[in-house]
């Protein structure tokens, strides 16, 4: 099969969906002729024109809020928030308006909105351009949250997100954009709420998201050399969360490590561990562990930043601890 980068896979998903449905438009800062700050919307204005690929001012509240109004009036907006860190200046339109309208209105609103955004550290972009805020999004009823880790998942999940009639926050880790992988040429969907077992194993379950999936896989390689068999589970969406696949994996391995790049406190890891404890406590042979960032803003200096981001070594150490 041919390979694409993560960014190219997203770009292909956008183009294929826009060809299929004329009600889809793309809007955001520098998404037009610039092609998006990470190149995901490259070539879109040339093919679809400026009505469907709309450069906006720096106006995050209006980017998201206009998507809410446009979706309520029948369009399918796919809007880009350049960095998830910027959600603070626009949060009301997402969590009070987009997320709640359907419920507040007794089920009558249909809001097919995709908010594409980037997250993650590793580019020395410092505290306001590097955060992982997926737990905030996961805490809001009414939003769905997709967190792809591979080019294949990125394309399939984005197509699903675009066809979904609910607001979806689609989070792309910026260090993954250059990652290559096999991607089918035809459009395909990946159902939300279906975790993917990225590597099968028997001794410990490592649940990881986005960039951390690849670190978990590297840790699994290391641990295999020492005779420890790791199962890596990638939830792929946080809302809905496929608790069943995670629990079934833990029932088999009897041990759990959760890895994410966001800070540990109040993070997705706590939710996953709690779900497993509620449903499979008796199966656990060791207390679950979380490998996550410390409770600090993201630092700038490469040395500090690497100390912040969970490493393969930390995942290996945590896995050994629960297996011991």
């Amino acid at each position, binding site marked *: 099969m041919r390979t694409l980068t993560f960014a190219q896979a997203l770009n292909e998903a956008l183009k294929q969906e826009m060809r299929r449905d004329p009600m889809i*438009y793309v809007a955001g800062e520098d998404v037009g002729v610039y092609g998006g700050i990470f190149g995901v919307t490259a070539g879109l204005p040339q093919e679809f024109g400026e*009505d469907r690929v*709309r450069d*906006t*001012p720096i*106006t995050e*509240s*209006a980017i*998201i*809020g*206009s*998507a*809410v*109004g*446009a*979706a*309520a*009036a*029948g*369009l399918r*907006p796919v809007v880009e928030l350049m960095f998830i860190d910027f959600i603070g*200046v626009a949060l*009301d*339109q997402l969590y*009070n*308006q987009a997320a709640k*309208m*359907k*419920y*507040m*209105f*007794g*089920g*009558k*609103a*249909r809001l097919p909105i995709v908010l594409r955004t980037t997250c993650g550290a590793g580019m020395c972009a410092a505290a306001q351009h590097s955060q992982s805020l997926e737990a905030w999004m996961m805490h809001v*009823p*009414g939003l*769905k949250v997709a967190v792809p880790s591979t080019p294949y998942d990125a394309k399939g999940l984005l197509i699903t997100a675009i066809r*979904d*009639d*609910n607001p979806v926050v689609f989070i792309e880790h910026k260090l993954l954009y250059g990652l290559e992988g096999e991607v089918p040429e035809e459009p395909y969907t990946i159902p*939300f*709420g279906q975790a993917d077992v990225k590597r099968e194993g028997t001794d410990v379950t490592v649940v990881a998201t986005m960039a951390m999936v690849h670190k978990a896989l590297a840790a699994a390689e290391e641990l295999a050399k020492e005779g420890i068999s790791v199962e890596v589970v990638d939830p792929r969406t946080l*809302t*809905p969360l496929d608790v069943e696949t995670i629990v079934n994996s833990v029932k088999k391995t009897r041990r759990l490590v959760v890895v994410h790049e966001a800070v540990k406190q109040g993070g997705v890891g706590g939710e996953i561990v709690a779900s497993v404890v509620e449903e499979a406590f008796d199966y656990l042979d060791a207390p679950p562990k979380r490998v996550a960032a410390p409770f600090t803003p993201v630092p700038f200096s490469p040395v500090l930043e690497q100390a912040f981001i969970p490493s393969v070594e930390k995942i290996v150490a945590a896995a050994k601890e629960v297996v011991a």
Partner: protein
Amino acid sequence: MSIDTEKLLWMYTNMLKIRRFEEKVAELFAAGKIPGFVHLYVGEEAVATGVCAHLRKDDYITSTHRGHGHLISKGGDLKLMMAELFGKRTGYCKGKGGSMHIADMDLGILGANGIVGGGPPIATGAALAVRYKGTDQVAVCFLGDGASNQGTFHEGVNLASIWKLPVIFVVENNMYGISFPQTRSMRVQDIADRAAAYGIPGFVVDGNDVIAVYEAAGEAIQRARAGEGPALIECKTYRYRGHFEGDPMVYRTREEEEMWKAKDPISRFEAKLMEMGVLNEAQAREINERILAQVEEAVRFAEESPWPAPEEVLEDVYTVAV
């Protein structure tokens, strides 16, 4: 602008309908039959009425926390509104929204809104959809003087302006954001002056004169339908009641209230219609009685309606359950 008799009588009836509905809500709230927060539109009836008199069913509006008047003017059903205020399952939102979140997508009502300044970006988006589809609908964003200080107002109006979208921002300047007077919340006297910052027309009108509102809105809506972009209309008006029911109103004088009541939009318009020979005492009485009966019917409907079943709390979060 000449206005036909039918339209004049519709405006009179609509204003009276809002007034009688709101008076009944105040009574029911005081009696403990309506839970939560209610913000009444009494005194401001001419604004929603004069604007919505130009709107079609397929036009859009975004409303505010003080939204009952907008909903009634856009064709909202009194029974479904009252049932929603009671929290009954027959209400507009099946009891999930209440006063601050009533919506009717079939009437283009994209919701009352509990967040001050929530509406402008949403109305701009609805207008974007109109432009995108190439129809001649418009979107009207009702907002208050307080909301015009929010960042979302700036962002929504600016985006509508640069994209030349068919949206009309109607500022209901009732002079107070809860207790804080407009004179202290901004340096401009007329909020309509802010339109200049976006390169769009701004109108100041007497918001207690339904004809003045009707004329300004007519011009702005006509421009918008013709593809000439957004406008801002500031309607100077006054809410007779507090910010919400139960507000002690320590921040304004009884004299000020009486001064505004002397400019009551309904009695002024009634006198004018009688002077014009469009309305007589007997007709006015008949209209009033008809409205009172409709309001009573709405109350009866709400009272007799069932409560939602507790398990309904789980429904309607997502289009297909997650």
